[in-house]
């Protein structure tokens, strides 16, 4: 099934690889099954009559953090059949579960700041989450840290997700920034030293706390081909309240 996603490669061509930027590459199954990477999974869903893939991270015992545009579309409304497959790698996975509740962080004016699919105003508020009936990872979850300054102080941030443009969508991909992120607007930050690909939407941005512990500090939400860049929605105080208030 997911092999069909490769057809998008023809649409977006290989432009992203023509620039001097780090490109997403498979982590290997061993790393993908190591905490906190093992908290990442693929999100399959329907929007309208079409099926898509995105990514997400177990952020609480019953909840997965992802991108808002994975959850909702102006023409088709809420996405359905949202299946989270944790630690999918080359056909095997640890667990798989359908979402029971969906949330998008954003209200009347924040969501209304939407001037098209490439609008930074939309990406600035592009965060969502799914809540599940059962624990997703036996009670484990990735640590998170609402601290945007971590992203602007240098490279080394890791963006992860299930890219399905230039890869199969069955493997966890990772790309590490070479430079610091730049704040574009609100909670939307960009980095020109990396490319990201379709299917990584909703995947985590991980930062080291200086002691070797990796924390989720953002969500992959956008990419640009010309010039190459990756865009994320950072965890800030609003995101922290969202996680604290609505997710369990």
């Amino acid at each position, binding site marked *: *099934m997911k092999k*069909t*996603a490769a057809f*998008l490669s023809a649409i977006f061509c290989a432009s992203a690889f023509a620039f001097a930027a780090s490109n997403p590459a498979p982590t290997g199954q061993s790393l993908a*099954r*190591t905490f906190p990477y*093992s908290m990442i999974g693929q999100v*399959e869903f*329907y929007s*309208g009559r079409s099926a*898509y893939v*995105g990514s997400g991270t177990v952020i609480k015992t019953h909840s997965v953090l992802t991108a808002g545009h994975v959850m*909702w579309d102006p*023409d*088709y*409304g*809420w996405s*359905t*059949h949202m*299946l989270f497959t944790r630690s*999918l790698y080359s*056909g*095997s996975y640890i667990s798989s579960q*359908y*979402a*029971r*509740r969906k949330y*998008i*962080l*954003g*209200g*009347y*004016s924040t*969501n*209304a*700041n*939407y001037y098209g*699919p*490439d609008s930074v105003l939309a990406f600035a508020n592009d965060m969502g989450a799914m*809540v599940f009936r059962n624990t997703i*990872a036996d009670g484990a*979850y*990735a640590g*998170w*840290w609402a*601290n945007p*300054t971590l992203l602007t102080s240098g490279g080394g941030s890791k963006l992860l997700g299930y890219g399905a443009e230039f890869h199969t969508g069955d493997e966890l991909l990772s790309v590490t920034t070479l430079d610091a992120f730049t*704040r574009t607007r609100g*909670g939307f930050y960009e980095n020109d030293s990396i490319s990201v690909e379709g*299917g990584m*939407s909703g995947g985590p941005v991980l930062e080291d706390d200086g002691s070797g512990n990796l*924390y989720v500090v953002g969500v992959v*939400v*956008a990419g*640009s*081909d*010309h010039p190459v860049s990756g865009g994320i929605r*950072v965890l*800030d105080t609003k995101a922290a309240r969202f996680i604290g208030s*609505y997710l369990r």
Partner: protein
Amino acid sequence: MKRKRLLVALTIAAFLAGFAATVWLRPAVSPEKQRVNTSPLPQSSAPFSNAPATSQNQPRAKTTPAKSLPLSAQIDAILAALQTGADPREQLDALKAALRDVDPKQAIAAILNFLASGRDASTGLAFQVGEGGALDGAPTLRVFLMDQLGQLARDSGDAAGGNIARQVLQTKNSADEWAISLRNLAWSDPNARPFLAGKMREMLTYQPWLQKPDSGFLEAFDVIAYTQDPGFTEPLADMLRTGNPPLQRAAAVALDRLAETAPLAVMNYLNNNPGVLADKPFVRADYFAKADFSDSSQRKAVEAYLDRGDVSVPEKSKLISELASPGSFVSDGLLTSSAPPEPTEKQNSALLDTVQHWIDSQKYPHLQTPLLELQQELAH
């Protein structure tokens, strides 16, 4: 200019043969689940830092009004400072604290005195709603003071908040002032919903505000969810189709929240007005997915929708699929709390029982496949 794009990947081309063709959802992954040792439970999330300030203004001079001044003099000092480009956040925070330091009647009197003067100054901040409907950002000193007035009046039981609101709502000078006045009046008078609905309808037809909707205008859409008036469904649906992008999005969020706060009324309205949202069938289906099946009236409204001949099978299938995992927009609203709680066991049982009955009785033969999928998802 960068051309940004969303990063979901399409897995199947559009136009599958209806939702029955959902075999892909049982992905071709290896059937064996590799249970790896789960990582040790992480420590609870690290403390989060305050996000950087969002103002895009140039740095300004910082001055703070002397607390020893009378309140009216402090407000005048801030007005003067704002007019010279002083940092608004520090100024307004100091004033907020000063207003809380005195007797509420005294603070309210000082605010009323300033509002009556007609003076004002821009803060350079965006209209931003925070916790409990209080503003995190006010674009003008008047809006800031109206926000403070509303909170002080509500907390002290003073009628001034509602009285001033009614005055402001007589003339359309500022959408931001209207938005905060609608909130203040709702806080002041629990019986004001019909009046608020009428004023909201005025807003939705006032072209100058519609053509260039600012944040306050858009945040006022929360009044629609507060009034629970299903009559807003049609104008919002029109706005979804013909409004500019900010209006379309605000209308979408408002419709979703209206359907959450008044599910039966919205479902009945949509059933009685079959043309409404007919051009957004999958969005319309979402509003029926807000139903509480433990309420027989709501269950019957859903059944009436599923019985409709003008609604396509894919749209009905969308409703059934959405029942498995309803969605909500979450934000700080001027008047409504964001999202309903997760369904209770009673509600879940009622949904499961209804689905089982529909399947067993073949009540909807064209929908057996999505119903069986729903049953499977609910049991998952």
